[in-house]
């Protein structure tokens, strides 16, 4: 019980300290929400240029550069296809992969982490061995093995994301659960005759909600990076689908002639992952009293 005493801060100092992360959470969420909104809503407005090929207008620079035309605000590729239109639809897939990829890692990870942390004993030992084994395996090896076996497709990509992501989630929720299960209210509930299932579902999980949301956010960033890396290697999203990672891959041959094809998806991945990770950190700080005190 000694080990968790630092979690039981007096609520006044907790409230005071939590004020700053809340505003940064807002300012980090705003550009992310705008990005998601644009990527999903722009195609519905009919404002985007036509997606088709146009061999008369190949490798046109973006509209704001010399030689560019505003008919293609971000220019065109070697087949004369509009880069902005590709960018928006690839962004949609990237964001969907980020969200689903986080979900498939966070759900089993949280479940196993809470089980290990709450029930301890042999359950904990088995799950901890699995966590450590998973964390010891280099992700790229796991990914290559699965993809070599099953080929590239979205379900395989999600399998890779689940396998490479669950262990981190499980480790964090396990230690968070270890702390919550020793809180006195858990003993009080047991004394009132509450079942272990009720305690876990109604009390432990809600008290971990903040940590889980923060972890999920960080996992979105990780999923997007992993997807981009795999797609860049030609192992993730493959034509006819396109993500920002696969756009980056197909644009790399053109870097000397038409840098804008790879530049915008590359910039978008960087900014998106940066924002998502900062948001995840802010949320984690917001919900982790140990970090809050620093």
């Amino acid at each position, binding site marked *: 019980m000694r080990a968790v005493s630092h979690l039981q801060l007096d609520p006044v100092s907790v409230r005071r300290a939590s004020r700053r992360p809340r505003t940064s959470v807002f300012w980090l969420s705003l550009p992310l929400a705008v990005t998601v909104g644009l990527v999903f809503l722009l195609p519905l407005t009919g404002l985007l240029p036509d997606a088709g090929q146009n061999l008369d207008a190949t490798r046109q620079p973006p509209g704001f550069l010399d030689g560019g035309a505003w008919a293609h605000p971000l220019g065109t590729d070697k087949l004369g296809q509009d880069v902005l239109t590709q960018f928006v639809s690839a962004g949609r897939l990237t964001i969907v992969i980020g969200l689903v990829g986080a979900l498939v890692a966070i759900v089993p990870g949280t479940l196993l982490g809470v089980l290990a942390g709450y029930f301890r004993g042999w359950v904990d030992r088995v799950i901890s061995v699995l966590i450590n084994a998973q964390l010891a395996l280099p992700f790229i090896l796991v990914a290559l093995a699965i993809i070599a076996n099953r080929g590239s497709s979205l379900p395989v990509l999600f399998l890779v994301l689940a396998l490479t992501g669950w262990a981190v989630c499980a480790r964090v929720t396990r230690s968070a659960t270890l702390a919550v299960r020793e809180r006195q209210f858990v003993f009080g509930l047991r004394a009132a005759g509450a079942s272990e299932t009720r305690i876990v579902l109604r*009390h432990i999980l809600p008290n971990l909600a903040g940590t889980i949301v923060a972890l999920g956010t960080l996992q979105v960033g990780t999923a997007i990076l992993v997807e981009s890396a795999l797609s860049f290697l030609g192992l993730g999203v493959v034509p006819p689908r396109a993500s920002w990672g696969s756009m980056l891959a197909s644009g790399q041959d053109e870097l000397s002639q038409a840098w804008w094809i790879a530049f915008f998806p590359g910039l978008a991945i960087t900014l998106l992952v940066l924002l998502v990770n900062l948001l995840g950190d802010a949320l984690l700080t917001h919900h982790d009293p140990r970090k809050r005190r620093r």
Partner: protein
Amino acid sequence: MRGAGAPHPRTSEPENPVLVVGDLVVEHRNRSTGEVFRAVDHVSLSIAPGASVAVVGESGSGKTTLAMAATGLGARGTGDIRLLGHSLSTIGRRELRRLRPEVQVVFQDPHGSLDPRQSVRSGLRELRALQPRRTSWIEDAELLGRVRLAPEILDRYPHQLSGGQAQRVCIARALLMRPRLIVADEPTSGLDVSVQADVLALLQEIRASTGAALLMISHDLAVVRSLCAEVHVMYRGQVVEAGPCEQVFVAPVHEYTRELLAAMPGARWRSRR
């Protein structure tokens, strides 16, 4: 000593003790070093229905470990624990769950004893759902009145309560179960001096009016003296001295008890009286 002379509803027939601890040994294993630490070392005690028994000792002497083992909530250890006539070593899981509400614990940290995500009202609602028959005897507002809290408190969350208010909510939650034994583990150590006496008076009053036995755990001899008839002095996991309060405090036998008494603020004044 409010309510000290009040009749105990259950004293008419001789009853078995609510709690018997026989030769209890509890060891903690440090998970990183693997070292074993004996927190409770061959402790025996017995609590009669409606009695008030104290365990005193400095911090780290094993009081909390003893309380958690004795109520079946913490590490069991070895030795015989009979809770309301049931031996904890042979009792089934389901039977233990049915027995549990009879024994309620009030902890040291009142805020840690309440789920931070639950308002007072929804916490009480959950307890009522867990023990529908046991808890139907009193309404929320009246229950809070019993612990001198206004009904407005019902819609507050734990962080919106002061330490004293939170501890009263904890006492109300314990009271709702109509327990036969209340274990109070340093219930005032986390509170402002100004509310400590009120909380102690409240515990005493509830003991007197419900006939529940009270196991009071404290490092504060003044608390024990005002509340309990019998005291066990714990030192490094062992009970070094036990007996009626007056006897132990007036004529302490063990060296450690004398030290405790000497360290007690206002000790001289009290012993002269």
